[in-house]
């Protein structure tokens, strides 16, 4: 087990290095003067320009620049500074809670609704509730995320006026619409995934055994059916948490939530390369680490998996 974790961690080093390198290259190695790119359309004095060249080691060869940067990230949590001289880490610290809140609320929503829907479908298989859930999950999975976002804004924000449609000034309530938007696709996937797994499990020999043991139906489903059917669902939820950071760019932009995603979007348009690289590097690290944790979780949930 420990050996497996170590090996996976070692494998992840090149993945992290190269994924971040791709982003770094995209932002800093594009043709033209990177400092110009950094500055965007704003005027800049020669002194500032020289300082920036030094700070980003721009006189070094590209790979050296990159390694100096990534070294700083991992050894000193130094994500560079903005054009105005503000540490990128500062921005991250300020914005991270918003995105984390959004992701956690969305995960909770999709876990609760997806799992309940999946169980209902199995219990009422081929009956009205099952059909209804199936039709709605097809819609949820198939609608583009911006469509869902706008739809929720129009209906619940404007027409009904139940929730704020922008910003996060009203606390947790203001996260609900964005979180539902971010969770909608996965809620549908989870419901369908769990239905498939649970229907299979309910037809399995071990569930027949559980019934033959004289257990109540709720216990047969809960302890024996769900315990097996939830394994792929839990791993999906975990893996989805990792990709939510990417989805947060769109959702935070639609709902004007001041999180990391919105910051990335703004920095890309504003050509603030250092901020982009900093946040994206962080996102990639999150992604990779969460995926490793999900792998290990899978092993905990399913005793048949052996790590070698």
């Amino acid at each position: 087990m420990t050996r497996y974790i170590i090996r996976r961690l070692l494998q992840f080093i090149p993945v992290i290095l190269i994924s971040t390198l791709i982003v770094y290259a995209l932002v800093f190695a594009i043709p033209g003067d990177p400092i110009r790119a950094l500055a965007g359309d704003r005027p800049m004095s020669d002194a500032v320009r020289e300082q920036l060249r030094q700070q980003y080691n721009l006189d070094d060869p590209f790979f050296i620049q990159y390694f100096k940067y990534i070294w700083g990230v991992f050894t000193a949590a130094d994500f560079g500074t903005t054009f105005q001289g503000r540490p990128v880490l500062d921005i991250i610290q300020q914005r991270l809670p918003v995105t984390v809140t959004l992701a956690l609320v969305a995960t909770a929503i999709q876990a609760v609704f997806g799992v309940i829907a999946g169980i209902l479908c199995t219990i009422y298989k081929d009956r009205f509730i099952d059909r209804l859930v199936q039709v709605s999950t097809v819609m949820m999975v198939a609608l583009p995320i911006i469509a869902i976002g706008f739809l929720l804004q129009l209906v619940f924000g404007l027409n009904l006026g139940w929730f704020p449609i922008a910003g996060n000034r009203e606390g947790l309530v203001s996260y609900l619409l964005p979180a539902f938007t971010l969770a909608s696709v996965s809620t549908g996937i989870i419901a369908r995934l769990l239905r498939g797994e649970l229907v299979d499990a309910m037809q399995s020999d071990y569930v027949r055994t559980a019934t033959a043991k004289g257990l109540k139906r709720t216990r047969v489903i809960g302890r024996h059916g769900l315990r097996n059917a939830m394994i792929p669902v839990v791993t999906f939820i975990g893996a989805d948490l990792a990709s939510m950071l990417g989805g947060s760019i769109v959702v935070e932009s639609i709902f004007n939530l001041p999180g990391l995603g919105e910051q990335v979007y703004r920095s890309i348009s504003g050509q603030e390369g250092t901020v982009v690289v900093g946040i994206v590097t962080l996102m990639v690290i999150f992604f990779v680490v969460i995926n490793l944790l999900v792998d290990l979780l899978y092993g905990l949930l399913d005793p048949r998996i052996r790590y070698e």
Partner: protein
Amino acid sequence: MTETTTTSGTPLLEVRNLEVEFRSKTGVAQAINGMNFTLHAGETLAILGESGSGKSVTAQTIMGILDMPPGHITGGQILYRGEDLLTMGEEKRRKLRGMNISMIFQDALSSLNPVLPVGWQIAEMFRVHRGFKRKEARAKAVELMQKVGIPAAEKRVWDFPHQFSGGMRQRIMIAMAIALDPDVLIADEPTTALDVTVQAQVMGLLKDLQAEHNMGLILITHDLGVVADVADKIAVMYAGRVMESADVFEIYARTANPYTKGLLESIPRIDGAGERLRAIPGLPPPLTDMPAGCPFSPRCEFATELCTAERPALREIVPGHRSACHYAEKIYAMSAEGTEEARA
């Protein structure tokens, strides 16, 4: 064991004219057409038949674990100590399951929950039916595992099913089934998936446990060899019907049914060296399209027009020996003769 068999009083389990069918879009399959048998405490009844003869469906119907739909019970009674299980309230019946009537399945690997420790699965019986606390139930699980012969049970109680060998897994199934000291134990092909050497051990264990607890054992199998060793009574099933039932020695010595005769001739015998094995020609009829007469008639060498026209009832030929064949007496006389010849 035959000594302990009591033929008087209310039987432990009695199945009367049970009929089960499976309905699907393509048609109706008659899985069981009038099943009858009785089982007393301490007695072993072997239900013998080819796959598709309805023996597993019988077991599942008794247990109340038949998938419904597609299964439908269209007639008959299943009396447990005189009380009909089929008309009993669901909650009452559930409590009987596992506690009074329990079951062992063929494939222990798929029948045990793969993600729960075996000890937990055994202990669950005590926790659910007896309300034991976690620790007490665990102690009981260890005790049972020792009883069914699992080495180092104390250590292995939290192991998972895939970490055991086939024979050990079947022992765990057995431990779970006998946990609450049931009256009736149904074993559905308990040794089919096991190696021959392990088969004998597991059957031996079942026999010992049966004697110890004076259980009524229903052994469902297609293996005539297993039957001869263990069973007191046999019911031979074909196409959802009982073709013949009698004491085990009676059937082996003097069968009164052409199907049983065919079965017995198709297995090698130690004393029959040089004899040619004979297979029964043809296949069982499809359950969706049962012949009007005797279901075995298309394959039967003794069949006449009567057989294709009229379905023979299961009737007593000699006391304790019943057969569903128009010519049961003729076959009975023939096989009795054959046995005399072999002895001579």
